[in-house]
């Protein structure tokens, strides 16, 4: 390098450019991670295909749709996809970012913290769009006939993303990375079984069912089913449950998140 190469010319890039660059990087990191892909793409796709074609769980088919089990399963799998990215994937990735000092190092760069969080959120949304596109193609190939208003679906997915992101960031920002890894996977599994994704909630006893119904995954899968299977309007009860979790989770994460 010639003389004067390092002559100071300090300054931050425009914040929009920083967010764009950070979003692209976060998305690449997410898509490059094999374990993450297993969780966010392969498991939902396998569950959708398996349960739609093999009669393992008897699903309620009576109301609306074409009467195929995929009409029950597809909304639940979309909810699972949202959870896998916004909660499990985000918690694990952010936990390790914190552990490896990435959050600390970026904290000394011109990128403001709010912009980093915005970029992480955008990268979750980009990943969700890719997941939903893929799962929709598979579901349609399996004979899915979605009903309802796409805007209601989008609203539910956004609320669900906010709720799961808050919980994921809360976990990543307070626990050790290894604990986050274990806990996020365990929660994923428990909510997969107990959140109305593939096992309808009415298979559970009434008392258990009313509690399970308040989980964010149940609200999201139930809400999506209400619109996509039954062609209903935006289900306000489910939306309110998701909004409540979003406020709680994001609020707690904002207060308790430790950057180092």
């Amino acid at each position: 390098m010639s003389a004067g190469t390092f002559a100071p010319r300090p300054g931050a890039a425009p914040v929009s450019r920083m967010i764009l660059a950070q979003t692209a990087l976060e998305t690449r990191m997410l898509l490059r991670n094999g374990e993450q892909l297993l969780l966010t793409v392969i498991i939902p796709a396998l569950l959708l295909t398996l349960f739609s074609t093999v009669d393992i769980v008897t699903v309620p088919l009576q109301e609306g749709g074409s009467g195929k089990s995929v009409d029950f399963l597809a909304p639940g799998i979309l909810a699972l996809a949202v959870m896998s990215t916004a909660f499990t994937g985000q918690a694990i990735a952010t936990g390790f970012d914190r552990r490896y000092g990435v959050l600390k190092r970026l904290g000394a760069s011109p990128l403001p913290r709010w912009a980093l969080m915005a970029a992480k959120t955008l990268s979750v949304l980009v990943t969700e769009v890719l997941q939903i596109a893929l799962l929709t193609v598979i579901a349609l190939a399996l004979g899915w006939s979605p009903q309802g208003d796409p805007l209601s679906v989008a609203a539910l997915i956004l609320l669900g993303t906010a709720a799961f992101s808050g919980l994921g960031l809360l976990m990543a920002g307070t626990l050790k990375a290894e604990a986050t890894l274990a806990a996020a996977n365990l929660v994923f599994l428990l909510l997969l079984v107990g959140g109305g994704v593939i096992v309808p909630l009415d298979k559970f006893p009434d008392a258990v069912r009313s509690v399970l119904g308040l989980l964010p995954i149940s609200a999201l899968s139930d809400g999506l089913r209400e619109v996509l299977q039954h062609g209903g309007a935006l289900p306000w009860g489910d939306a309110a449950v998701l909004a409540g979790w979003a406020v709680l989770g994001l609020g707690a994460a904002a207060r308790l998140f430790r950057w180092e």
Partner: protein
Amino acid sequence: MSNDPAVEIRGLVKRYGTKTAVDGLDLTVRSGSVTAVLGPNGAGKTTTVETCEGYHRPDAGTVRVLGLDPVARAEALRPRIGVMLQSGGVYSGARAVEMLRHMAKLYAAPLDVDTLVERLGLGGCGRTPYRRLSGGQQQRLALAMAVVGRPELVFLDEPTAGLDPQARRATWDLVRELRTDGVTVVLTTHHMDEAEQLADEVAIVDAGRVVVHGSPEQLCRGGAENTLRFTGRPSLDLASLLKALPDGTEAAELTPGVYRVTGDVHPQLLATVASWCAQHGVMPSSLTVERHTLEDVFLELTGKELRA
């Protein structure tokens, strides 16, 4: 380049629980200088530097970096400083060049990434994920990330820890080049030779305080005096030798034929002794200079070995 100090620390105190990491530390870093913060592990070097970087709020005292409070004015300060952490700071799945290119995008007028990659010898591992880089490669990437935004001031926390001699020299060359181009450098180290080679100013830190601060030459001259030993024939006329030497210099015959000159030992003094020997027909069969090193200074001031 302004005459205001790049960093001004007054009475900094930082505690972690019951442990006091920094205990009333004062430090001024001249703009455009290379300042080495030297001390053993646990002396408070990293805490001090990280407080300047805005990571910690002081429990007492004031810190000003480029005239700004690093916590309250973080957004104004961060684009102007470059930071190299002691370890980590990169996504484990990110490739070396990818991460550097990303950092460059966060700045208004960054360095050319390809040139910097070549300069630091990162070309060969540019596509390797961070977690598979060697320790030395990770250090060089962290250094590149600290300078890519063309900062006015860089903080390097143990920039050569774990590097082989060749990579160390490359890092030293880069630090020298930064200074030549007008960048202020603050680095921490526990290598004496690094401080002596690179720094305009050295601050020796122990137990959370600066115990002494000055140029390496000043520090080595102060404290115990330096020594010149030579051997020749016995019973030389030391009074005549002393007349030729500057005031304050002492000379003694330790054992017959073994002489010691103590004082401010510099090349001129060496020349004077040699020419006095020539005038008196003395052939010194040995002549050694025992210079005071920073290591001695540190040992005297703290009673500790530096790398203990």
